[in-house]
């Protein structure tokens, strides 16, 4: 292994009077390997990367990069590193070639080397055909490759990538990973920051951050190993798996559990006997040991999952199942913007008490479909119905039946917690005693009482998410629309969120969720895979996985299935 490229000793960074963004972080980043900088949003990943680039100074501790002190010798560091910030650092109104020329000039790439370097990088990123295209008109994955190419113009000794996996489909993400892995063979040290734990798992080493503190450093397998022998999968379950999960989580000795397609995945406390499971919940199914994952060990380190009870669901009134009348219906939904078809003939129906997922890369049309179904966009053709109301004619009535929680939580940051609750109660038409009652109940269920007066903006991410959910379910909607509801949050918060959703679904609430997060897709009863505006596959997670199985990958993951189905669609298109 090559020598270490970054040394951190008690690095601390504060912004104003808020809790420190980084607190006494010590560790090293090695050359010739991929170091995952892992943690939920707000953990301090971007701050740490900026400190390493020398764009910020630490308030305390020592930080040396390639042997240079970041405080005094920042220019020398900047001459030797490659950095791709979160939004890739591209000029959208410059073409691919112009962006490359600009960065080549700024990085002082000698003229005689240019033709060769450009040729190599354009080949490597597969952008040769697009050199004349404006960067703003590239897809997310292509932008990211161009950003990477710009950061690699002079072979850096350290490459810093800030959340390169965000907003990019799994195929582009795999390509990027392969490119970066090639670089490590040449001795380049790579830092890959991410909130996705499956990305963390693939790194050579990880620095796991949470609220500015370093929780773990070392090879991911070392942490994962701590959960070895304690993870089990229950399959062949009779009856609904969500109540089973809830019961399992309440058993002594069960630390964590999630839905995985038709199965349930459980983690036991050290020393707990799997036979206990068989007695309690798995009587109907088979129980088999499963490979532990990084996420299991991470949750274990944080003290286990949140348990299976949802006070929200317990307080909800049950609705009768009515198979004859689906709650959400899409029939040939089509949306065109000019000559671009964002959504093309999307059709599905969701019966009461089902979680339905729209899965797909950014820009594929899932948000467009989603917006048409909650009445925010008028379809060019086709029909959408919620709770029997036509979204075109009875938009207001339909909207009154649905709750909406948007990406990054559509709260009013300037309003306090109590004001947000009151506002959304008003928007959904609650008045008088019912309004006061619902607000009181939400405050109690989500434990927001102590924060009532605080601005929503200043809440920690997990609480923001609780508040957003409280606002969306205030009026007991029949249908819940969730747009990327848990991207960037820590696994405990995500479990807590899904516990509520699972509980509500058992009470008869219908859920439509968009996600590009593969683990989240596993919670769904059925998924529609949206690609280039069309639904290219529809089925349960297990069905989609099975359809992608082949000799090379007999038991594909959700991501494998995604990649295979998209490639198949591309091949069919080309034929």
């Amino acid at each position: 292994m090559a020598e270490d490229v970054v040394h951190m000793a008690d690095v601390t960074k504060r912004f104003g009077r808020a809790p420190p963004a980084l607190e006494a972080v010590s560790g090293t980043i090695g050359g010739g390997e991929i170091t995952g900088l892992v943690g939920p949003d707000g953990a301090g990943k971007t701050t740490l990367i900026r400190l390493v680039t020398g764009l910020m100074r630490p308030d305390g501790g020592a930080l040396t990069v390639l042997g240079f002190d970041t405080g005094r010798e920042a220019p020398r560091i900047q001459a030797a590193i490659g950095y791709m910030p979160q939004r890739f650092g591209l000029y959208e109104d410059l073409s691919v070639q112009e962006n490359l020329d600009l960065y080549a000039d700024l990085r002082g790439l000698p003229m005689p080397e240019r033709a060769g370097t450009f040729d190599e990088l354009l080949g490597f990123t597969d952008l040769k055909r697009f050199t004349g295209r404006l960067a703003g008109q590239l897809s997310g994955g292509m932008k990211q490759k161009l950003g990477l190419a710009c950061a690699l113009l002079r072979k850096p000794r350290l490459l810093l990538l800030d959340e390169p996996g965000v907003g990019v489909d799994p195929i582009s993400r795999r390509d990027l990973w392969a490119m970066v892995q090639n670089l490590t063979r040449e001795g380049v040290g790579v830092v890959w920051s991410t909130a996705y734990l499956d990305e963390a798992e693939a790194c050579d080493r990880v620095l796991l951050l949470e609220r500015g503190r370093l929780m773990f450093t070392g090879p991911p397998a070392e942490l994962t190993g701590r959960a070895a022998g304690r993870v089990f999968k229950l399959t062949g379950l009779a009856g609904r798996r969500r109540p089973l999960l809830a019961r399992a989580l309440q058993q002594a000795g069960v630390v964590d559990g999630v839905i995985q397609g038709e199965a349930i995945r459980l983690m036991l406390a050290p020393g707990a006997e799997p036979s206990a499971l068989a007695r309690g919940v798995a009587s109907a199914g088979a129980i088999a040991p499963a490979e532990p994952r990084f996420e299991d060990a991470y949750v274990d380190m944080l003290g286990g999952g949140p348990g299976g009870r949802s006070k929200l669901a317990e307080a909800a009134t049950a609705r009768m199942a009515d198979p004859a009348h689906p709650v959400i219906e899409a029939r040939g939904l089509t949306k065109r913007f000019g000559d671009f078809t964002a959504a093309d003939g999307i059709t599905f129906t969701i019966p009461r008490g089902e979680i339905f997922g729209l899965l797909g890369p950014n820009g594929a049309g899932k948000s467009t479909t989603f917006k048409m179904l909650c009445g925010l966009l008028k379809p060019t053709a086709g029909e959408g119905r919620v709770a029997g109301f036509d979204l075109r004619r009875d938009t207001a009535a339909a909207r009154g039946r649905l709750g909406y929680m948007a990406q990054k939580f559509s709260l009013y940051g300037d309003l306090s917690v109590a004001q947000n609750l009151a506002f959304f109660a008003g928007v959904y038409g609650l008045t008088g005693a019912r309004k006061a009652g619902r607000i009181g109940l939400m405050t109690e269920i989500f434990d927001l009482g102590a924060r009532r007066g605080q601005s929503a903006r200043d809440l920690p991410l997990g609480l923001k998410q609780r508040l957003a959910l409280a606002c969306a379910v205030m009026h007991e909607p029949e249908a819940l629309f969730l747009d990327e509801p848990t991207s960037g949050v820590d696994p405990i918060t995500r479990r807590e969120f899904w516990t509520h959703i699972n509980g509500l679904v058992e009470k008869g609430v219908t859920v439509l969720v968009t996600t590009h997060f593969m683990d989240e897709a596993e919670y769904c009863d059925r998924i529609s895979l949206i690609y280039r505006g069309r639904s290219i596959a529809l089925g349960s997670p297990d069905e989609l996985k099975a359809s992608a199985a082949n000799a090379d990958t007999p038991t594909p993951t959700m991501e494998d299935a995604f990649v295979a189905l998209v490639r198949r669609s591309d091949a069919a298109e080309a034929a």
Partner: protein
Amino acid sequence: MSAADRPRSGPPPSGRARRFAALVRKESYQIVRDPSSILIAFVLPLVLLFIFGYGVSLDAVRTRVGLVVEAATPVTQDLAASFRASRYFDVVPGRDRRQFEEDLVFGRVRGIVVIPAAFAGDEAGRGGVPQIQVIVDGSEPNTASFVQNYAQGVVATWAAQRGAETARPSSPIAVEQRFWFNPELASRNFLVPGSIAIVMTLVGTLLTSLVVAREWERGTMEAMMATPVTAAELLAGKILPYFALGLAAMTLCVLAAVFVFGVPFRGSIVALYALSASFLMPALGQGLLISAATKNQFLASQLALLSAFLPAFLLSGFLFEIGSMPRAIQLVTWIVPARYLIPSLQSVFLAGDIWPMFLRAIGVMLAMGALLFVLAARSTAKRIA
């Protein structure tokens, strides 16, 4: 070899020149491709110029007034005829001032001129000024003083003529008014040069602060800063293209002013460019400082409007004479760069080159620019926090 192996003396100068050229080229592409910069630099200035050239006029022509002749005598009739003949007034005749009171309140007339029953024309003959009453709406001071002054002017002219007709020299010295530099007293002639200063404020401060703030918002500034480029190069790479754009917008306005609006141009082109270039220094410095301090397009545009655009309009002597402002406000005008440019620019158009005045203005503007550049460079220092 990696960049870190280079000698410790820092990057070679040729690298610096190349980086600077790359930044200027990048910025120029962006200006050309971004419709909003073309809009602010060329379309908005022309719109402003047309508004000031055609729409806004500070000259009152044919103001409607009520004329009350309390007693009809040959003398008062003669004076009334003079009012009717005046090109400044549109006269509504009446018998009683009360009949115009409501018209004045509702703005149907701008003033009431009363020729009292006691008015005797022979006062003029004795060298005195005949007394008339002028009632105006004090809530519109400009119009009020206009009506008052011009009414007195009509009477004075009438008295002088009457004196001449009766063959008695009314006064030994006849006062003949002559306005220098703007003999037609067309407000367009001084508004248009002034609006060129406004246009350069738009390009230099508003547009510049927007584009730099946009780089912060889109994260490109961060990516730039993580390269070997220095803060000085980044700033210079912004200044040069917008400096050129500001001069181009100014040139367009001058051409339109002279050839479309017929504003005279009596000074030299050298003076015009020297003054404009000097003014662009504080304007650009202010834009860069605002964007570095806010890093946000919305805030930057608000600050640029408040701290540059409005002062250039209101506190520069463009619309309101500085001499008639309260003392405290007058002191504030000293830090408004447009205050130094506008009188000099008006001279270039209407009077000609007055180099002592120009050099003083250029000196002050360059000093302000230097100060603002230092502040901007400090806040753009290659740090994010």
